[in-house]
């Protein structure tokens, strides 16, 4: 059970293949595949959560979940006609290395791809919960449904789960990790 990384990755590659199928670029697919391929290995099963301080629920809980939900929808959604502005808006939710990765991919691949192939993606968060939270960081689990439309083809739908990590920077919660499961 522990060494599920390869099949894990394979699965994601499969999801990626769906998104980038007819095209070459789906923002989600690339962002997520990089993320899952490159960084944190499969840590944190429910039975092995990192120890959390036993303090009262952070007052920010509602802020954390609404920010996480808005961020996920922004990161995973764009319209072909407005992809530039859509992704620029998404960047406002991000920080750290993930912001750099996201920005690089958006500029090099996603924006040109979406414009050339007329790709639009709409993501909705069907459920969101808090795995752990302190005053300065939070781990969330999101269930996401995505509808991808390429040109005039009928839309295709994909569902997945995402683990998202937020950190508090000043008074703002920002996403610094985004990992598909």
């Amino acid at each position, binding site marked *: 059970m522990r060494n599920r990384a390869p099949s894990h990755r394979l699965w994601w590659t499969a999801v990626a293949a769906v998104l980038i199928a007819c095209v070459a670029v789906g923002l989600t697919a690339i962002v997520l595949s990089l993320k899952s391929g490159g960084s944190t290995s499969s840590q944190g099963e*429910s039975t092995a959560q990192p120890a959390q301080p036993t303090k009262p629920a952070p007052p920010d809980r509602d802020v954390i979940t609404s920010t996480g939900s808005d961020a996920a929808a922004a990161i995973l959604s764009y319209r072909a006609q407005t992809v530039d502005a859509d992704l620029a808006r998404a960047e406002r939710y991000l920080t750290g290395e993930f912001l750099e990765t996201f920005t690089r991919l958006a500029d090099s691949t996603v924006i040109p791809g979406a414009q050339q192939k007329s790709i639009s993606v709409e993501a909705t968060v069907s459920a969101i919960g808090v795995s752990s939270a302190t005053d300065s960081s939070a781990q969330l689990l999101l269930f996401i449904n995505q509808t991808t439309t390429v040109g005039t083809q009928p839309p295709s739908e994909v569902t997945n789960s995402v683990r998202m990590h937020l950190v508090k920077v000043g008074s703002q919660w920002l996403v610094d990790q985004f990992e598909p499961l």
Partner: protein
Amino acid sequence: MDARPFGRYQLLDSLGHDDGIQLFRAYDTATARTVALKLLPPHLVQDRRFAEPFEREAHSALALNDPSAMPIHCFGEIDGWWYLESPLDPWLAPTADRRALRYVALVGSVVLLVALLVLVGVQLRSASDQERNQLAVQTASPNPTQPSEVPAPDTADGDEFQQAAGRLALDLTTTSPETIDADVQRVLDASTGIFHDDFEKRSKGFADVVRQSGSTSTGDVEATAVELMSGNSATVLAAIAVTTRNAASPNQEPRKWRMRITVQRQSGKILASNIEFFP
């Protein structure tokens, strides 16, 4: 609704999708019957990662001839699309939950998952909204019938609720023909209320299917999170990877399951009172 022609079929409406594979209710003009069609788009046909499981399912379903497996009428290729034709869900009852049935249809011949969803998921999902409303009510005004010796509220993140829900998700998805009675008992011991009673009622059928199919299922809880929490109950989201194996299909890719588990503290234990599956 416009029917879309597809070879000898008319695609009537979409029943769902799963990792690029599309499922339709379709009318077969050759046999004059309405069937379920599973379609693999041409660009995925070229991808062995998609094509292989599809082929395997077609062949294993034909070879398996297991009454509890999803029977496959036929399979083939039309305009570059691969298709599998199967009967519309034989369990389709007027009262059954449609979304769960879609899922049942999607998991196709993966016997165990079908059994589990039929026996556990289908009848449970409809209770979910009520249950959540109840939770909301409880949050607003403490229920006087609850035992008064309830311990102080949990840690910030409901760790105990998450652990209990994660364990239940694991128990529910980790079964084998040899241990099925104990597997069922573990779930019963960790559940309460309508969920417990429904599961108990259906557990014999569930165990029979697991034994007949020879399917071993292994669950891996990838993440849990608290969605809502009141003093003594919570809804917990769980993402689970489930690998099912049997003689006919020894190397299934893991299936990703997404669940919402309602848990409550009762006389010092945390028990599950509802489970919903997200399609």
